[in-house]
């Protein structure tokens, strides 16, 4: 059975607007992403790589100074990037929901959790306060919280983990088809983070929604997602099934990211491999990673970064080769060569 994609982003570009109204600088360029129901898609990248801007663009919550210049976003087959604000609002919460990184920031500190939950429900559907309360409590229970107590609590009376569970409940309770989890565990300790992600995966299986997990924690993305994409400098570097990306990274940046990660098993090396250089600015021309790339060629600086595309697993590198061909391998084979470049 072929399912229709929940979210289809094609050629999405987001740019910064000047006071005069002209576009100054691209922050995100040419993003393609497709999410199917029940799928968890990981989006990794350094801070400032454009992950969160992509998420905001989907939600229609880009700050006033940013705007979509190109491309389209389809949610369940409907184009949503050009919808008026009111129509977008009706989609938010109901069709697509978001879990944010900052656990304290998801709920206003001076209003009770219950009020904020029922308010969101009632914003979308006409229902009595009692009904709204019942639904909210039901979902608070599903995320394994003492529902009544949390319902009547203020956000500051809950722990970070409890709050993140609450926002999980808040995002799931209207059974949206898409959930964007924007670094949902960054502010939490490791154990709590694992519990939250377990809950998310569990509930996702039940509701069959698609999840876009944005994270800079490569480990949990590798462990939990079905597919993953890697962003750098506003561009998509690589995209494919998680297992395939892990086993056979195509893009030099992905390769280096995977190397920079402490191994899941075995011994901790004395030093983790670091990616040299500073995270780059968004390049309008050429590959954004080129300045830091050890395999850089002349063409990388000038040619637009749109490289090899295999059916399922694609990379933006001009020289990437799924078959393990010569270009990168040739450079990578020479360890001394790398040493030189890295220094």
């Amino acid at each position, binding site marked *: 059975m072929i399912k229709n994609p929940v979210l289809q982003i094609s050629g999405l570009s987001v740019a910064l607007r000047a006071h005069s109204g002209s576009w100054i600088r691209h922050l995100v360029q040419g993003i393609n992403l497709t999410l199917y129901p029940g799928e968890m898609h990981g989006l990794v990248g350094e801070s400032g790589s454009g992950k969160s801007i992509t998420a905001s663009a989907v939600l229609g919550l880009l700050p006033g100074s940013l705007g979509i210049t190109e491309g389209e976003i389809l949610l369940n087959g409907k184009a949503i990037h050009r919808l008026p604000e009111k129509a977008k*609002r009706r989609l938010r919460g109901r069709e697509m929901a978001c879990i944010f990184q900052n656990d304290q*920031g998801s709920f*206003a500190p001076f209003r009770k959790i219950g009020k904020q939950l029922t308010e969101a429900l009632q914003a979308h559907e006409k229902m009595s306060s009692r009904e709204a309360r019942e639904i909210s409590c039901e979902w608070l229970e599903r995320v394994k919280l003492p529902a009544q107590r949390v319902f009547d609590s203020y956000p500051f009376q809950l722990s970070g983990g409890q709050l993140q569970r609450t926002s999980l409940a808040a995002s799931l309770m209207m059974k949206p088809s898409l959930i964007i989890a924007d670094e949902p565990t960054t502010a939490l300790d490791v154990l709590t983070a694992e519990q939250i992600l377990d809950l998310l995966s569990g509930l996702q299986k039940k509701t069959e929604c698609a999840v876009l997990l944005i994270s800079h924690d490569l480990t949990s993305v590798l462990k939990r997602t079905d597919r993953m994409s890697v962003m750098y400098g506003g561009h998509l570097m690589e995209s494919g099934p998680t297992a395939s990306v892990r086993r056979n990274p195509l893009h030099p940046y992905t390769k280096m990211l995977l190397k920079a990660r402490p191994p899941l098993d075995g011994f901790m090396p004395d030093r983790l491999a670091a990616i040299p250089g500073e995270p780059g600015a968004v390049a309008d021309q050429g590959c954004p990673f080129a300045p830091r790339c050890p395999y850089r060629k002349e063409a990388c600086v000038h040619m637009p970064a749109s490289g090899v595309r295999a059916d399922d697993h694609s990379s933006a590198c001009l020289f990437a080769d799924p078959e393990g061909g010569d270009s990168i391998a040739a450079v990578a084979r020479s360890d001394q060569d790398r040493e030189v470049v890295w220094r």
Partner: protein
Amino acid sequence: MVIILGKRLFQLIFVLFLLSAATFTMMKLAPGDPVRSLLRTDEFLTTQADEAKLRKELGFDLPIVVQYGEWMAGVMQLDLGKSYLTGKPVLDVMASRLPITAQLTGGALLVMLLITVPLGTAAALMPGRWPDHLGRALALIGASVPGFWLGLLLIYGFSYKLQLFPSMGKGGFFHMVLPCFTLGFSLAAVYARLLRNGLLESLSQHYIRAARARGVSERVILTRYAFRAALLPVVTMFGMSIGYLLGGAVVVETLFSWPGLGNMVMDAIFGRDYPVIQGYVLFTGAVVVMINLIVDLSYRAIDPRIRFGKGESA
């Protein structure tokens, strides 16, 4: 909760004690002899005997501490003494004037709200556009214009030239327009700015974005989230503005011949009617402390973090 209330109550008593002691001392230090001035105003030939009799009647022959004690005992029973000029009990005089002043200050607060809320909101929703600039200019003017001068200009323009509103005394709605606007304008200008800053700050908070992501409507976000958060600085400032409001009322009442407490106290000052002045000062002090108590309490209603002892305390 109880502790805060108790602390405020203690402050109330302490302040009233301080005020009473201060006004009593000042009254005794005051130049001139009230007995003589009293007798002089009666336009009768006075004798030593008359003077001694009045002195005794007013209790001025007793030692000062006893006088204070007796006076204080009276104050406790809400007996503020009698006006030197009219002989009426001070409390009665004040009670008859209070509603008139309350009407003026209430109207001024209404004017303030009518200007502050739309202007502050518009400025916050359109930062850098014309409502914002208007708000900025008004705030600067509002903090710089002398209230009595604004009142005079209004009288000249609207009452004398255009003959739209009456400039004197108390009457119906039309009598209230100019005095209330005069008193409310400076507050409105400053508070509009305060509201604008508060709204801008709260609108940039993450929880607003989260609420938007849940699909909550902009109207609900503005009224139940942003306004609520912006209320804190506004309410805090209000506790400080109450003094301005009461002082401004004196000026405005004089300017527009508004027969309230302010007019009463001005008459009392020029007539050396010490008990009335004293009553006014005590009453005003009590009002200021009470308003601050209310501000404290509403603070706790607005921000539950204070109620539960988290975050910063009032």
